[in-house]
């Protein structure tokens, strides 16, 4: 018998509808319409203008060029190089910047001393010093790395220093009256207390570093996404320029949304109370 009991009524399960509602409420529908709209608009414009392959190649052309570059293995190579530079530069920046910031922040006199100069170097962007480094070391891999490291290091060190300085002195005094050693204070008060600032500084530093990677590759001429869009422009391959831009945007959104932002939010949630 195929009759169903009333309890198993043919009403649809609530899960898809709830998901659908969340999708539409979170702007999913608009996002879809937007994507379709942009692609339609883009194709129309590129079919209307003269010489579209130079000024605005159609979306299909970009997709073809991406499959072509994938086939030749160029795209994965460039993406890999760019990400590798970013990761290495950021890790070095964090490894140097965090201890540096903490050490400088420990002593009030020392931190007052170094605060202005860190601020000064933070405000010279890495790209601005790139010509100097190019004169020093030429168009080498070392030059790109120095620029990335420089760009990441100072925002990180500056924020860590500000974080250490922001810890209420009461916490340190309490630990001290309870007989804690200096190491203990650093471990249990200063590092946790500066955690939110360390996370913010890291996100800021890595964000600047990402821009420095792209610009550094363009100016120094080291293979990567920045180099790809720069040479593609030189050789009139606008489809590759657009492809590279889309890749740069997508990679940064992925890094920011799925790595940096969650880490920052978790850190502030976990350690942020110390500061209040």
């Amino acid at each position, binding site marked *: 018998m195929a009759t169903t009991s009333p309890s198993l009524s043919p009403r649809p399960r609530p899960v898809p509808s709830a998901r659908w509602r969340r999708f539409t409420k979170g*702007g999913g529908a*608009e*996002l879809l*319409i*937007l994507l379709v709209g942009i692609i339609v608009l883009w194709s129309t414009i590129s079919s209307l203008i003269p010489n579209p392959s*130079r*000024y605005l190649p159609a979306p299909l052309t970009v997709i073809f060029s991406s499959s072509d570059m994938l086939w030749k293995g160029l795209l994965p190579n460039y993406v890999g190089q760019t990400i590798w530079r970013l990761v290495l530069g950021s890790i070095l920046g964090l490894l140097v910047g965090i201890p540096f910031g903490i050490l400088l922040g420990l002593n009030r*006199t020392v931190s*007052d*001393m*170094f*605060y*202005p*100069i860190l*601020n*000064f170097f933070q*405000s*010279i*962007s890495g*790209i*601005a*010093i*790139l*010509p*100097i480094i*190019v*004169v*020093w070391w030429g168009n080498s891999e070392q030059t790109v790395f120095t620029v990335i490291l420089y760009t990441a290091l100072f925002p990180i060190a500056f924020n860590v220093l500000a974080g250490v300085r922001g810890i209420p002195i009461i916490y340190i005094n309490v630990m001290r009256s309870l007989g804690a050693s200096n190491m203990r204070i650093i471990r249990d008060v200063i590092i946790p207390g500066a955690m939110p600032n360390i996370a913010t500084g890291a996100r800021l530093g890595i964000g*600047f570093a*990402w*821009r420095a990677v*792209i*610009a550094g590759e*363009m*100016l120094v001429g080291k293979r990567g996404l*920045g180099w790809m*869009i*720069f040479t*593609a*422009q030189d050789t009139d391959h*606008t489809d590759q*320029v*657009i492809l*590279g*831009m*889309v890749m*740069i*945007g*997508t990679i*940064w*959104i992925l890094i*920011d949304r799925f790595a940096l932002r969650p880490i920052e939010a978790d850190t502030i949630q976990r350690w942020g109370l110390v500061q209040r």
Partner: protein
Amino acid sequence: MNAIQTLSVAIQKRFGRQRIRKIALGSIPFLVLLTLWRMNTVNEWLPPVYIPPMASVAEAIVILQDECTGLAGIFSMHQGCQFTNHVLSSMGRVGLALIIGVPTGIAFGVLAGMNRRISNTLEPIGVFANAISGIAWVPLAIVWFGIGAMTTLFILLNTIFWLVFFNTLLGVRGVPRALENSVLTLGGNRWNIITQVYIPGALPSIVTGVRMSMGFGWRALIAAEMIGGSSGLGFMIFVSASEYKIEEVFLGVLVIAVIWMITDRSFLVPLEKWTIQRWGLVWRPS
């Protein structure tokens, strides 16, 4: 001795003891760096091709300004005043981009803050535009506008508009509904709500956005001038580096840093503080 003591007490009273201490301490690393720089010139640890002597950096201004015809020449951007021309063209570009970018950013931000549908549409574009960092637009901008002022202006506008837009949007969203409803109850119309509730309520966030966009914009501008510009400080240091005139590069970098620090410290930071003090309470009624 007594006179010196009274003088020092008077100075401390006038400027504040803590501030003097901070300034004095803060200048130590700079002095050390300058001394090292000077010692490098004297002892030649690193050849002057790598690190130029201080005097030649100062001299670079004179050389660049060689055929300048005084103040009138500076302001009419006479061809001989190369240095001030580069400075003025960079700063003028920032000013122009601010005049265009900030009002449009605020307008679209308020619009998007009022309407879910608009914000849902514009937000993903903005996220993507921000993620494609300023520099990555340069090659495409060169294709579209050619090398020159338009390209750099485009990069700058692109950076400023989206950051101001986002911060305005966040600010408008943060304005409590109660304020909006109370203005409506008192008989206000849509325009009143925008001018009396949304914009004042979002002002602290807007000013933060302007400051952020200036920070990112200045960096993006320097890079854009290097790659796709034909004037400006970025262009200057890039060309000088390719001609191995390291003293001009040092000069340019120092000027870039000093301009940014002066703008940020004595203009943007006080503005932000003042706005938060003045308007920040509007959206924290608790």
